[in-house]
């Protein structure tokens, strides 16, 4: 069965610091991968998606970037965090029409 891992689970970072969140998937090959952000009490905002290694599409322009260095690895980065980057970051892989989410990283920017 497929498993999706995310780390860290929680993170507190100062404004202006860099960010790197990692997501890995097991049990499937060449998955579609996604990064979402969920602000407190809000819905899911799609940030990036990837259909293969090195292929990244951005949905919302902002100070975040994503990379896919390996088939089952998806990384979300920022060079300088903003207060508005706080939120719950969810990685997901697409199985057919559905999305399977990782446990998420709760990021607080102070």
């Amino acid at each position, binding site marked *: 069965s497929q498993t999706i891992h995310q780390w860290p689970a929680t993170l507190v970072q100062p404004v202006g610091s860099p960010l790197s969140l990692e997501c890995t998937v097991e049990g499937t090959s060449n998955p*579609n991968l*996604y990064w979402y952000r969920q602000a407190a*009490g*809000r*819905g*899911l905002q*799609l940030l990036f*998606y990837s*259909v293969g290694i090195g292929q990244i*599409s951005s949905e919302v322009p902002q100070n975040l970037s994503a990379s896919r260095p390996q088939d089952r690895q998806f990384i979300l980065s920022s060079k300088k965090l903003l207060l508005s980057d706080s939120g719950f970051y*969810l990685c997901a892989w*697409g199985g*057919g*029409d*559905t*999305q*399977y*989410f*990782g*446990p*998420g990283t709760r990021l607080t920017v102070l």
Partner: protein
Amino acid sequence: GQQVMQIPQYQHVQEGEDFTTYCNSSTTLSNIQWYKQRPGGHPVFLIQLVKSGEVKKQKRLTFQFGEAKKNSSLHITATQTTDVGTYFCATSGSGGYQKVTFGTGTKLQVIP
């Protein structure tokens, strides 16, 4: 792109009461999915509907896809405290990239 509106945004019910959340689109949808997110957790896929007028049941949960494939509903009979969470509808397009568009969600609170 496709947009789905979800109502209500919040719902408080007494344990044992029924609950319904609605998902609406101005365009015809190829499918509708439902997810549940427990407080502090991540969204979990519940079900997908693809056929016009389709009705599916999971224990106390009943999912319905409208005849015109522009709306859907999730009905919970006799709510329990374990039903607490946010329910999202979502829809995906066709093609190799399955971009899933999520509704705004309905947050359900069950009062014991």
